[in-house]
């Protein structure tokens, strides 16, 4: 019997069978292109779209929670269907993630949709950090009992401490800063300073992924960014796509003889934007979000758990989610936590090779656990025992 693992993120869904090497990463949304009026683009169908300017997004998630089922079902129909995963529902167990502290009624809807509409044979619902923690404790650590999981995704960043595989529920914390806020902020900044790009979410998000980084020394980088000419080592010229000659944005390499486009294309100067935007993860108050940044929030989580656990959690900080791909992220978290934590304790962070798909990998590993078949909820159980029973089987809230 097959097991499909779906890390159902608000930004992108990571989906694939437990036997696959890596998941498909599918935008969890439906898009409309300004210049393509004959069709819509569901999830990764966007790869078929040649003009990615002014995309209009329909998202199933709001503030990190699944609220629009019409859209989610369109994406899932495509994802499970013949063009993508070709799921044989009657013979498939689904491992699916939900956000931390998911609302009761969303959990109900989820259970109902998966069993009644898609007719999965069995399901296993959990939080993504649970799967990451599972993988970390089994594969990437030396028999560690504790994990402090940082999951920095599209809508928000969660900090989840675990002890002996169990989530310390009362100490789970959330910062309302994620990749979406970063991209939106970058759009605002560029639109104010240089060029109106408020409608170019797709392009600006790509630009963010191409040139943004987390600064190791914010003040120093600010000073460098103020310099002119060659002394400014931060400045990059980003060539925007025009979707006729230039299919994708890129950083202009100085004196690149193969770059023949010079002079005709639109460019954006990326200077302090490169690091001031990701800085929001560390200083949300820079844009008026009155919340702690990630390192400070980590110490806040510690203040909510038994002090005995502090040294174990501090040496097992695991960084997952798309924002961890930002260069410099790991060093900055380490630096920040190191400077705040007691000097009696060691601090160590772990950045998986692919922080975005780590939870998915954990789901695959979990499905091979000898006990896995006992953890799932079958459709038969659901039919016989009802919804209330079905909800109690999983610890998602």
């Amino acid at each position: 019997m097959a097991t499909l693992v779906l890390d159902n993120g608000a930004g992108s869904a990571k989906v694939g069978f437990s036997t696959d090497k890596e998941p498909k990463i599918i935008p969890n949304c439906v898009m409309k292109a300004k210049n393509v009026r004959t069709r819509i683009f569901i999830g990764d169908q966007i790869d078929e779209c040649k003009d990615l300017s002014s995309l209009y997004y329909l998202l199933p998630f709001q503030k990190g929670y699944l609220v629009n089922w019409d859209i989610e079902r369109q994406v899932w129909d495509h994802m499970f269907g013949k063009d993508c995963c070709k799921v044989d529902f009657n013979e498939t167990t689904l491992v699916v993630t939900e956000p931390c502290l998911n609302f009761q009624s969303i959990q109900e809807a989820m259970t109902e949709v998966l069993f009644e509409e898609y007719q999965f044979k069995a399901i296993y619902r959990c939080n993504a950090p649970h799967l990451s923690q599972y993988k970390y404790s089994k594969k990437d650590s030396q028999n560690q009992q504790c994990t402090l999981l940082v999951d920095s995704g599209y809508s928000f960043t969660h900090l989840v401490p675990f002890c002996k595989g169990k989530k310390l529920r009362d100490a789970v914390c959330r910062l309302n800063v994620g990749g979406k806020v970063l991209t939106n902020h970058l759009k605002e900044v560029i639109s104010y300073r240089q060029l109106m790009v408020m409608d170019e979410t797709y392009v600006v998000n790509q630009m963010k992924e191409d040139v943004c980084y987390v600064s190791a020394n914010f003040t120093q980088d600010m000073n460098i960014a103020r310099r002119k000419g060659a002394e400014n080592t931060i400045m990059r010229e980003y060539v925007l796509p025009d979707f006729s000659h230039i299919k994708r944005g890129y950083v202009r390499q100085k004196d690149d003889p193969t770059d023949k486009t010079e002079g005709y294309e639109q460019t954006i100067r990326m200077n302090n934007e490169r690091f001031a935007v990701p800085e929001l993860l560390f200083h949300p108050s820079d844009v008026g979000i009155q919340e702690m940044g990630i390192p400070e929030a980590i110490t806040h989580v510690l203040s909510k758990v038994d002090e005995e656990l502090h040294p174990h959690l501090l040496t097992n900080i695991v960084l997952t989610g798309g924002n961890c791909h930002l260069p410099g992220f790991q060093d900055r978290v380490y630096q920040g936590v190191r400077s705040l934590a007691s000097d009696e304790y060691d601090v160590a962070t772990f950045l998986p090779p692919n922080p975005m798909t780590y939870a998915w990998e954990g789901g695959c590993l979990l499905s091979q656990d000898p006990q896995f078949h006992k953890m799932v909820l079958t459709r038969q159980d659901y039919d016989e025992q009802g919804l209330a029973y079905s909800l109690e089987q999983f610890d998602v809230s």
Partner: protein
Amino acid sequence: MAEKRESGRVKNAEQKRVLDEMSRRRRQRKALEALESDNFSEDPHADLKMSKKAPKFEEAIDANGAGKKKRKSRGDFKQRYRKTFAALLEEEQMLNKEGPTYFSACVPPSKLPERHFCACGARFCCVKCLGTHQDTRCLKWTA
């Protein structure tokens, strides 16, 4: 003589609008909402009349789901689960009285002092930048 000397800059500054606390807060809230928004412009296909075969979108989830045709197989599902984030959150607060909640899980404000930047990246960088701010009446980073 001293009172006759005046600076154009100071004089100008007096004409500048000073926001009261309420408007500042409103502005701040709007700025935060903008950071959450999915799209800046309206649906570019809003004027299209979808044919019956074309997939339909109902992006505005109206809380009661009234007036929408439902597919038979989906039964009353939509009715029960068609709720906005705000409605779901309210419902969750009613159901979940103990243990951590959406609100309690949010990290508190930082203990570190706030940093202030203008559009150029620094609070005061140069007179030229100040000019841009005044010309555009930029309030983004003042609120």
